[in-house]
C-alpha cells in the first residue's frame, strides 16, 4: 500500500523539469510538497496520478489508488453540490455523500448550484469530492486556495482523519496547514542545464 517513487524524472511542455526524485509515501503519513513557483509541483502530481508519462524512473503502488485534486475543481456549474458529489460517488462506486457534506459543512449548500458559489465555497465542494472517491492516496495541488481559516482547519481535520484510517496524502502548498507531516522540498531536484553538445538530450 506504499507509494514508492524511485529516480523519477519529469517534463512539461517538452522541457525536463525535475530529476532524481526519490521518496516513499506510507499509509497513515502525509507529505508536504514544497518548492518555488514554476519548479514543477503540479507536473509531479499529474505524473503520479498517471495523467502524464514520466521521463524516467518508477512509480510503484499508484495504480487506481490515487484521488487527484487539481487547481480546477471539476464541478459542473449547473449541477447542485449534492448532484456533483453523487456523480463522483457513483463513478467511484462508493455509497454515500453524507460524510463528505458533513465534513466540509456543506449541508446548507448541498442544493445550491455549484456555479453560484463563492470561490471558497467552491473549493470546499471540490475537496469534499476526495472523500467520496474512497481512494487511499490523495494528491492535492494547493488545496487551501481561497479557503478561510475555519475551512483550512476543516481541511486539516479531514486529512488527519484520512491518515488515521490508513490513507496517505501528498500536498503541494505554499502556506502552513498546521499538519504534522514531513516536508518534501524539491528545489534541489531541478534539472541542471546540460552541456549544449548533448544534442540528443536537448530534444527531450
Amino acid at each position, binding site marked *: 500500500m506504499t507509494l514508492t517513487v524511485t529516480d523519477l524524472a519529469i517534463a512539461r511542455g517538452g522541457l525536463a523539469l525535475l530529476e532524481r526524485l526519490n521518496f516513499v509515501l506510507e499509509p497513515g503519513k502525509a507529505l508536504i510538497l514544497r518548492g518555488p513557483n514554476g519548479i514543477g509541483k503540479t507536473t509531479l502530481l499529474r505524473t503520479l496520478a498517471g495523467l502524464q508519462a514520466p521521463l524516467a524512473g518508477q512509480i510503484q503502488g499508484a495504480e487506481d489508488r490515487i484521488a487527484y485534486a487539481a487547481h480546477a475543481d471539476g464541478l459542473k456549474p449547473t449541477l447542485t453540490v449534492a448532484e456533483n458529489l453523487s456523480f463522483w460517488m457513483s463513478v467511484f462506486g462508493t455509497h454515500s455523500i453524507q460524510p463528505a457534506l458533513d465534513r466540509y459543512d456543506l449541508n*446548507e*449548500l448541498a442544493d*445550491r*448550484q455549484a*456555479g*453560484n458559489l463563492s470561490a471558497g465555497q467552491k473549493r470546499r465542494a471540490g475537496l469534499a469530492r476526495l472523500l467520496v472517491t474512497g481512494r487511499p492516496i490523495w494528491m492535492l495541488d494547493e488545496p487551501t486556495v481561497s479557503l478561510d481559516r475555519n475551512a483550512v482547519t476543516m481541511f486539516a481535520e479531514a486529512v488527519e482523519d484520512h491518515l488515521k484510517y490508513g490513507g496517505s496524502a501528498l500536498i503541494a502548498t505554499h502556506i502552513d496547514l498546521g499538519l504534522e507531516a514531513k516536508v518534501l522540498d524539491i528545489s534541489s531536484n531541478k534539472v541542471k542545464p546540460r552541456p549544449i553538445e548533448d544534442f540528443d538530450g536537448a530534444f527531450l
Partner: protein
Amino acid sequence: MTITAKANSLWEYANPRKFLATSERLLPFFWLASTTCLVVGLVWGFFFTPDDYKQGSTVKIIYLHVPSALMAINCWLMMLAASLIWLVRRHHVSALAARAAAPVGIVFTLVALVTGAIWGQPMWGSWWAWDPRLTSFLILFLFYLGYVALWEAIEDPDTAADLTSVLCLVGSVFAILSRYAVNFWNQGLHQGASVMRVAAVTGSDTEEKVSNIYFFPLMLCIVGFVLLFIALVLYRTCTEIRARRIKALLARERANA
C-alpha cells in the same frame, strides 16, 4: 385577501401582492368569458355556417386561424410594452408578465402556422409556401423561441429580465425589417388583411372578403381568443410571481443559515 386602499394610480398594480389579489378576483371572470365566447363562436362557426362556394368547408378553419394569428402578433406587442415598462420603471411584475406571455405567444403562433398549413394543402396544393405572410410568421416564431431560450438560460432573474427586454426591443425592429424584406423577396399568395374592411362592408360578398355569415362567429372567436390570452397571461404571471417569491425566500433562507 382584500384590497383596502383604493388604487390611485395604475402603477400600484405593479406591486406583486396587489397584482396577485386583483388577478385572483378577475381570473374566474376571464376564464368563464373566454370559454363561453370560444365555445359559442366555434360551435356556431363549425356547425351553423354554410360552406364557401369556392373553398368548401375549409372556410371553417378561419375561426381558429385568424384569431390565433392576430393574437400571436398582439402577444409580441404586449411583451414589447411590458419590456419597455420594465426597462423604464423597473416594475418586476411587468418583466414577469412578458416572460409569462411568451409561451402563450408561441402556442398561438403555432396554431396559426398549423391551421394555415392545413388550410394551404387543399387551397394552394401544398402544405407550405414561402409566402411573405407565412414566412414572417415563421420568423416571428423564431424570435419567440430565442426569447424563451434566453429567459431559460439565465440564472439571475433581474439580469434575465434586462437582457430579454433589450432582445425584445431589438428583435421587434428586426422583425419589422424582416417583414419588409420578406415582402420584397416574394410577393405571395395569401390574402391581405380584410377583417377590418369587412366590418364596414355589409352583405356584399366578394371572394376575398369575409362575408357577414362568417363575420359574427369569427368576431366571437377573436374576442374569445383575446380573453383567453388575458386569462392565460394573468394566471401565468401569478405563477411567475410566486415562483419568483419562492426563489427569493429560499435564497434568504440560505443566507440566514
